[in-house]
């Protein structure tokens, strides 16, 4: 057992999200019609412990990205609480929030659209320090150079512009920028999905390294389950805005309990799979979040559904230590 896990278990959680809900309302397509309501995140509760990596997986529209943005208050929750380091930040004013932003950063999926094309690499990395530190210009540059080296880019690259870099290098710049203000918590929103396979592992190793070097807490969002399992201590599975299952990452892959988690794991194309494993194919499609099914959000595609699944939303229960699941059958 490594010491990191022990200390993480001992400390109190960095984040406690309770009943987190985000509803988006948009105009109806029909004139004078009812507005469309999307429950992007629907009554989600979880903790993120100090120093741990919590993975969130799910398919498009499941609310994983929205959840990440709610934690950072880049979006305001409709209801629910977000306790960060002992303080509920769900509804504090933006001014109070600004002081906290230094502690929480984000790394985006698309390194092509998340870097300002008119700024040099060095300026991009140093920019957050203008707002969040009292460093002089020279000190900021000094620090940016240091970060550049830390993420594995030679210092000759400092005056270059984003278009001169490959996807993997841009992602390194994005990581250096997030690290510049010495955050405690980083949301990694699909950080390797847009990268070539041979470059993905370089960036994943970098994320592992910084997490250990800087005792960071991460929320790692991805749809690639093999990547999430590899990097996370615990993994949460989301579907249509609900958190269906949450467990230790080994546990969830060895003993997935929710029928959705089971088919999700079965659907991963794996290179060890040349024998032609029997897949548990999910039928049908993800329902539209504007027209959420009643009861359990998954019941329309579930092969094991029973009568009450359509009427009653299953509560999340802890069925084994650290393993919670929202399903009537378990």
């Amino acid at each position: 057992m490594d010491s990191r896990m022990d200390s993480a278990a001992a400390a109190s959680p960095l984040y406690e999200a309770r009943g987190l809900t985000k509803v988006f309302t948009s105009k109806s397509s029909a004139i004078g019609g009812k507005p469309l309501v999307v429950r992007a995140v629907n009554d989600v509760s979880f903790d993120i412990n100090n120093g741990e990596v919590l993975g969130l997986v799910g398919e498009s529209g499941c609310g994983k990205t929205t959840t990440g943005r709610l934690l950072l208050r880049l979006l305001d929750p409709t209801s629910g609480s977000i306790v960060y380091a002992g303080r509920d930040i769900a509804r504090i004013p933006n001014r109070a929030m600004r002081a906290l932003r230094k502690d929480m950063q984000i790394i985006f999926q698309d390194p092509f659209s998340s870097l300002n094309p008119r700024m040099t690499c060095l300026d991009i990395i140093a920019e957050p320090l203008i707002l969040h530190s009292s460093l002089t210009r020279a000190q900021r540059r000094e620090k940016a150079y240091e970060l550049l080296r830390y993420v594995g880019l030679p210092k000759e690259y400092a005056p270059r512009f984003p278009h001169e870099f490959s996807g993997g290098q841009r992602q390194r710049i994005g990581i250096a920028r997030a690290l510049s203000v010495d955050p405690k918590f980083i949301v990694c929103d699909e950080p390797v999905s847009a990268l070539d396979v041979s470059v993905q592992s370089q960036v994943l190793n970098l994320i592992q390294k910084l997490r250990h070097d800087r005792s960071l807490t991460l929320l790692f969002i991805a749809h690639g389950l093999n990547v999430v399992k590899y990097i996370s201590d615990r993994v949460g599975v989301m579907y249509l805005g609900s958190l269906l299952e949450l467990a230790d990452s080994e546990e969830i892959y060895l003993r997935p309990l929710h029928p959705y988690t089971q088919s999700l794991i079965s659907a991963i194309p794996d290179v060890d799979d040349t024998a032609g494993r029997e897949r548990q194919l999910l039928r049908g499609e993800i329902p539209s979040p504007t027209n959420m099914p009643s009861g359990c959000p998954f019941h329309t595609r579930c092969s094991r559904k029973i009568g009450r699944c359509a009427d009653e939303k299953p509560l999340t229960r802890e069925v084994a230590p650290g393993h919670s699941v929202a399903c009537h059958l378990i």
Partner: protein
Amino acid sequence: MGALLEVRDLTTRFRVGRRVFINAADHVGFTLDEGETLAIVGESGSGKSVTALSVMGLVPNPPGRIEHGEILFRGEDLLKLTPRRMRGVRGNKIGMIFQEPMSSLNPVFTIGSQIAEAILTHNDVSRAEARSRAIELLKQVEIPDPERRVKTYPHQMSGGMRQRVMICMALASSPDILIADEPTTALDVTIQAQILELIRSLARERNTAVLFITHDLGVVAGIARRAIVMYAGRIVEMGPVKELFAKPLHPYTRGLLRAIPKLATPRGQPLYTIPGIVPDLSRLPLGCAFVTRCPDREAICGKGKPPLRTLGDGRQCACFLAEGGV
């Protein structure tokens, strides 16, 4: 002539600047047998899509041009056909589906009329017949409620449904070959699994050969018996998927397989990495294109392009240092 499709020594060149040319596909050769599924796997810029476009006669010219080579379909060189005769092959004998189905469908026509159009182009049938065949085809690609679906527009469908429509259009003329260029990359995992299963079962039922292009080695494992690995425009390795994954011969294939976190990879164990980045095709190193990133390189690797050598058991590898098959 046993092979359904034989690509010989294909070189497709693109002009990327004043007097700057790149060989996006460089001396590519392979065969595809009747009813076989062959995967081409590679990263961005490896030449996998250009190879597919070359077979379809869809290389944009300018800036692209097929410099030399032969593409033999049932023994006939497609590169020598007139544009008119090529149109009789493309979409008819060889169908193709692309990564992003939304941009391949016309947003202002119903999907029914688009499928019917595909049928009318290649068959001598009436409109009414084409329409009922469209419904029939939608059923075959497992679209629920096809009678209603023919009247919907592409934007009213999900990505997975749109890809089903594309498959249905590609199959409208019962082609001998289906070229699938990253057909599941834009889809969610559970939908990807459905589409892969659909392609697999349709190909089996209709004895359609599939040329499946992907960057995902996991997908290759699930769909193909035989695979080609491309790097910087060239084939670096080719062989039966099982052997290729169990005992990769080329250092690039080896690196790729080791770099992917597998479900069995212990958490936190550093991943193997291939150093460096995919090279810029206009500035390839001398000799083997992989030489600058290769952990096993020797002096010879920087001197000439390693030829694709047969190393027993239907396996081929373009590495000076690779030895014998199994």
